């Protein structure tokens, strides 16, 4: 899938990252599978319908219920709008975390952008020359059904492992990274 919202975007147009060199080209952007959005979207769907479901059991409009608690009418309306704002916030956060959690592969290096919630952002990068031992793993029922798994690799320069989870077709991603590493190292030997 090479669409901008796809899990594996090849040669994305008008895309850059902080610290990109002039002679550096982004070859791939790898995101988590769109299937990871399914559980939050189901939860969101349920949350959106709560203000319409409550009257079925309580026997009255949600604003009427709040009025019966002697809450001011304007305040009751604000609470209902606020509920939908909360749903929108949850949707936006889910999309932000999914969209910006990426593995950027350039012709020089691999950048792992890790976003968790509002207050956490971690960026790691490794030169393609230093990448070693690329591994792909598919585990679990959902992983096997949808072919979603983890791609991990180690770097020679530092004793650390890069890990990217919930990737669509992890074997293909592993192959892409391995080929690029071999190509870069091959050129290195020729030079």
């Amino acid at each position: 899938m090479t669409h901008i919202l796809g899990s594996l975007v090849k040669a994305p147009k008008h895309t850059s990252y902080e610290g990109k060199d002039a002679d550096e080209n982004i070859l791939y952007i790898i995101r988590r599978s769109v299937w990871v959005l399914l559980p939050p979207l189901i939860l969101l769907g349920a949350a959106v319908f709560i203000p319409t479901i409550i009257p079925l059991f309580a026997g009255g409009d949600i604003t009427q219920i709040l009025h019966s608690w002697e809450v001011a009418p304007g305040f009751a309306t604000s609470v209902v709008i606020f509920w939908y704002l909360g749903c929108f916030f949850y949707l936006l956060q889910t999309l932000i975390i999914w969209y910006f959690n990426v593995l950027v592969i350039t012709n020089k290096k691999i950048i792992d952008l890790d976003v968790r919630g509002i207050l956490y952002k971690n960026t790691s990068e490794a030169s393609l020359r230093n990448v070693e031992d690329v591994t792909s793993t598919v585990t679990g029922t959902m992983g096997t059904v949808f072919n979603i798994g983890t791609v991990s690799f180690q770097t020679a320069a530092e004793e650390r492992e890069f890990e990217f989870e919930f990737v669509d077709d992890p074997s293909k991603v592993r192959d892409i990274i391995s080929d690029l590493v071999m190509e870069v190292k091959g050129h290195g030997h020729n030079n």
Partner: protein
Amino acid sequence: MGTTINSAYNMNILSISSLSGFIQILILIVMILFVIISFLVTRQVHILNKTLSTPLNIFFSQAAFIQLIISGVVVFLAFISV
């Protein structure tokens, strides 16, 4: 004079200590926290847009900004209606 102040004070205490008043104040505090979090989201999107620049970045910026404005308006309306 003293009686008037005392009765007004008692009325305030009664209204604040009542369940509906307590719930309204609690919800208002949550709403104000939500506005602060919405502001943090706009900053988060701004930083992420700098980290990874893509054609869809403008969508996230606008969505976060609209959320901040609407949540601010809702909190204001809730505040004046309490």
